[in-house]
């Protein structure tokens, strides 16, 4: 089992920061000619996407257009019917050690304490007990949850649960983080706080992320690049750079001059896709 250890993950947990700061951390994602069928209709058709290392990409699109499916394929959780996905040059056929997923419904094990939830993937990757404990605690500290390690998930609020989910993803020092509507299940206020925290985290430890969301605001706030997907079949309608520098805050993004036009542009795309349906392209 020890051999499963992430090849590029530094052995020493303390080097997380330095590795990230020197830009060594993120991996790139190459999706080419992706197809996915459910039944006889293609859910994703001929999709190409390149995500550069350390880029934060948000994916927006109407409900049912295949965002989750795309993310699950990247995560190695759904089979790829045609085409390929490569992460850091490694072909995805099963969940990769260098990829971490943050789930919409947290995906925490109710019978494990917060600490053990975070430490589990480390232990699974063959990290020694002491080392796993240190890294788990570091990750919990990173998301501001140092003192609830021995509580059970049922004792936490939704926002705290998702912080644990985030800590678990970051603890393995992945090259790519995939997040499927991670903040969709929490209230608007908590959501904004979590966005703020994520921005702060990313300004320190920039790394590759694909973040699926329904919220255009959230996408602009977080992303370097917004991918707009259309439905039936799922494909990329638009690929928009967000010209807002970092470090950012939720408020500074809202005040930015390009915020409103960007928002308008994405809205137009989505409206077009939902009314024109399959007639586009």
């Amino acid at each position, binding site marked *: 089992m020890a051999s499963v250890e992430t090849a590029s993950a530094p052995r020493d947990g303390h080097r997380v920061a330095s590795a990230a700061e020197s830009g060594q951390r993120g991996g790139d994602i190459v999706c080419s000619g992706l197809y996915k069928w459910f039944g006889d209709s293609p859910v994703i058709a001929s999709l190409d996407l390149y995500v550069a290392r350390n880029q934060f990409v948000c994916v927006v699109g109407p409900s049912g257009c295949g965002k989750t499916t795309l993310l699950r394929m990247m995560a190695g959780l759904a089979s790829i019917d045609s085409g390929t996905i490569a992460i850091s040059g490694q072909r995805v056929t099963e*969940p990769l050690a260098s990829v971490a997923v943050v789930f919409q419904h947290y*995906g925490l*094990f109710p019978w*494990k304490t917060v600490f053990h939830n975070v430490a589990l*993937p480390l232990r*699974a990757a063959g990290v020694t007990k002491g080392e796993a404990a240190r890294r788990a605690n570091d990750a919990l500290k990173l998301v501001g949850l140092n003192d609830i390690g021995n509580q*059970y998930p049922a004792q936490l609020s939704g926002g705290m649960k998702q912080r644990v989910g985030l800590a678990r993803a970051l603890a393995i020092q992945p090259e790519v983080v995939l997040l499927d509507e991670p903040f969709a299940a929490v209230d608007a206020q908590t959501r904004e706080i979590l966005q703020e925290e994520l921005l702060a985290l990313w300004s320190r430890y920039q790394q590759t992320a694909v973040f699926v969301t329904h919220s255009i605001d959230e996408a602009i706030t977080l992303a370097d690049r917004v991918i707009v997907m259309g439905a039936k079949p799922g494909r990329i309608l638009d690929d928009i750079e967000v010209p807002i520098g970092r470090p950012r805050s939720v408020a500074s993004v809202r005040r930015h001059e390009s915020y409103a036009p960007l928002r308008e542009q994405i809205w137009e795309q989505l409206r077009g896709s939902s009314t024109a349906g399959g007639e586009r392209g």
Partner: protein
Amino acid sequence: MAQRVEPKAVGAATPAGPQGDVAVISDTVLGAQIRDARRRRARRARRRFLAIRLISLVVVFGAWQIYGMHTIAILFAPISTVLHQGYLLFAHDQLGSQLGYSMWTFACGYAIGVAIGIVLGMLMGAYRWAEAAASMYVFALYATPMVALVPIISLWIGFDATAQIVIIALFVTWPMTVTVFHGVRQIDAELMEVSRSLRLNRRQMWVHVLLPGAVPFVITGATQGVAMGLVGVIIAELQTQLSGLGDALQTQSQTYHTAAALAVILLIMVLGVGLRAILGLVHHRAVPWLRIDRGDGAQR
């Protein structure tokens, strides 16, 4: 923002609070008060529960007593006579050793049944091949009254304790297997996906996901198994070689010692209730994540 923080800070700095001011209570004091109130409420709820239970016992046993005193002794007996007969059976007959014998066969059969149920149920729940191979027989046997198998078992194994243990095990195994099977199947599909994403290997999957996830169902199955196992004990003892509590029951009722027979029945009931209570305690200890304070003062 600053305004909201202020009273907290003041309260923490001066726990007593200035007398004339709006009552400022420190968080810790308030917290302790709320905790105490909640505990009091929980205690009151518990007491009420026990009181109702006690009243219910008094009413039922009172009715039994009165009715028993006004019927023919061959048909029924008041609870006082039943208890006295029970005492006599223990003191001067062999009810003690009969109880010991029954408990021993029960323990063996129950343990075998629970063990097979856990292994079979978990395998069928976790692996398609196991389900494909075994589930038809399990569900067929689950739907079959095990009493129907008793004569055949006697034919194959005989009439001794071994045969009885096998019969008891059969009573426990199938409901246990079915419950555990459904339990494993009910483990959240998302959690299974999470385990794949975390790259758990097969052993880790069992240790960290399947086994802990199935614990509540194993205990539910084991609790049902107590009732099934006790049925098995009595049936086995009546249908193979007359022995144990079954012997006591049969002997007393066939000789029209109704009060004594009722005493044996009462003993079997107490056994069932007691064993369930023990499993309730095990449940409480085994699943700490399910007894979390939900803020309603209820004890779980």
